[in-house]
C-alpha cells in the first residue's frame, strides 16, 4: 500500500509540474528539485527517528530503492504528461521540447542531489539484498521485453499515414518511457521483497 502511495504521489507531483494547471512562482524544474530535497530531508529525519525509537528503520539498500521509486515516478510522470499534452508531433526545436528537456534534466539533477542527502557512507549489501534485486530485475526484464514487443508490433503494423505525424522526439521518449516503467516495476518489487522480509522480530539493538 505504501509502495503504491509513494508511486502515485510522486507521479502526481511530476504531472503537476509538467501541466499548465499550476502557476509556479519559479521554473517548474526548480520547484521539483526543492520538493525532492525537502522530501529527502524529511525522510532522513523520519528514518533516523525510527532507528532511535523502534529500531525498524530500512537499511541503506532499501532506502536507495525508495529514493529510486519516488524519483523515477516523478520524472516518468513529468515526461509522460508533457508528451500527452504536446501530442505526437512534438518537434525537436520547439518551446515544448526545450521545456521538456530543461525540466527533465533539472529534475535528474535534483534526484542526484536528494540521493546524496539520503546516502550514508557505509553502504552494506548482503546476500539478501542481492537476492531481492535479482528477483525484481528478472521480472522487470520480462516487462521491458513485453513493452518493447508491443511497441514494435504496434509501430510495425500502423499504416504509414498514421505514423507520419509522430516525430522522432516523440517516439524516442516513448521508448524512454518503457525503460521508466520497467524500472518502476523493479523498484516496486524490491520494496515488496523488503517488506515481506521485515515484518516482525525487531529488538532493541
Amino acid at each position, binding site marked *: 500500500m505504501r509502495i503504491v502511495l509513494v508511486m502515485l504521489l510522486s507521479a502526481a507531483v511530476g504531472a503537476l509540474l509538467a501541466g499548465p494547471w499550476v502557476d509556479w512562482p519559479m521554473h517548474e524544474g526548480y520547484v521539483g528539485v526543492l520538493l525532492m530535497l525537502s522530501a529527502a530531508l524529511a525522510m532522513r529525519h523520519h528514518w533516523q527517528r525510527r532507528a532511535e525509537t523502534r529500531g*525498524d528503520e*530500512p*537499511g*541503506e*539498500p*532499501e532506502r536507495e530503492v525508495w529514493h529510486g521509486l519516488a524519483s523515477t515516478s516523478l520524472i516518468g510522470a513529468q515526461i509522460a504528461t508533457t508528451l500527452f499534452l504536446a501530442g505526437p508531433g512534438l518537434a525537436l526545436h520547439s518551446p515544448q521540447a526545450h521545456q521538456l528537456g530543461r525540466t527533465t534534466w533539472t529534475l535528474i539533477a535534483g534526484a542526484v542531489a536528494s540521493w546524496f542527502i539520503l546516502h550514508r557512507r557505509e553502504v*552494506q*549489501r*548482503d*546476500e*539478501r*539484498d542481492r537476492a531481492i534485486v535479482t528477483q525484481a530485475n528478472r521480472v522487470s526484464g520480462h516487462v521491458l521485453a513485453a513493452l518493447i514487443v508491443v511497441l514494435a508490433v504496434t509501430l510495425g503494423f500502423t499504416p504509414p499515414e498514421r505514423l507520419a505525424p509522430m516525430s522522432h522526439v516523440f517516439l524516442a521518449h516513448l521508448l524512454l518511457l518503457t525503460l521508466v516503467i520497467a524500472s518502476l516495476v523493479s523498484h516496486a518489487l524490491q520494496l515488496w521483497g*523488503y517488506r*515481506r*522480509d*521485515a*515484518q*516482525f*522480530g*525487531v*529488538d*532493541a*539493538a
Partner: protein
Amino acid sequence: MSVPIGNHLRRLRFDHGEMTQDALARAAGVTRQTVIALEAGRYAPSLELAFRLARVFGKRVDEVFFWRDD
C-alpha cells in the same frame, strides 16, 4: 510467509551476553535487517552465511539451524 528453515539465533544471542542484532550482523558481515528477517523466519540463509553465523557462536550449523517439520 515463513521459510522451512528455523534457527536459534535469538536464543544464542541472549546466551552470548545479550548480543544485539547489530553486533551479530557486524560479526557475520550482513545487515541488521537481514538478522531481523532470519530471526523472524522470513529468510533462509545461504550455506555460506549459515556457516558464518554458526562460527560467531562457536557452534555447528546444525546446532543453529534446523528443518521445520510441519
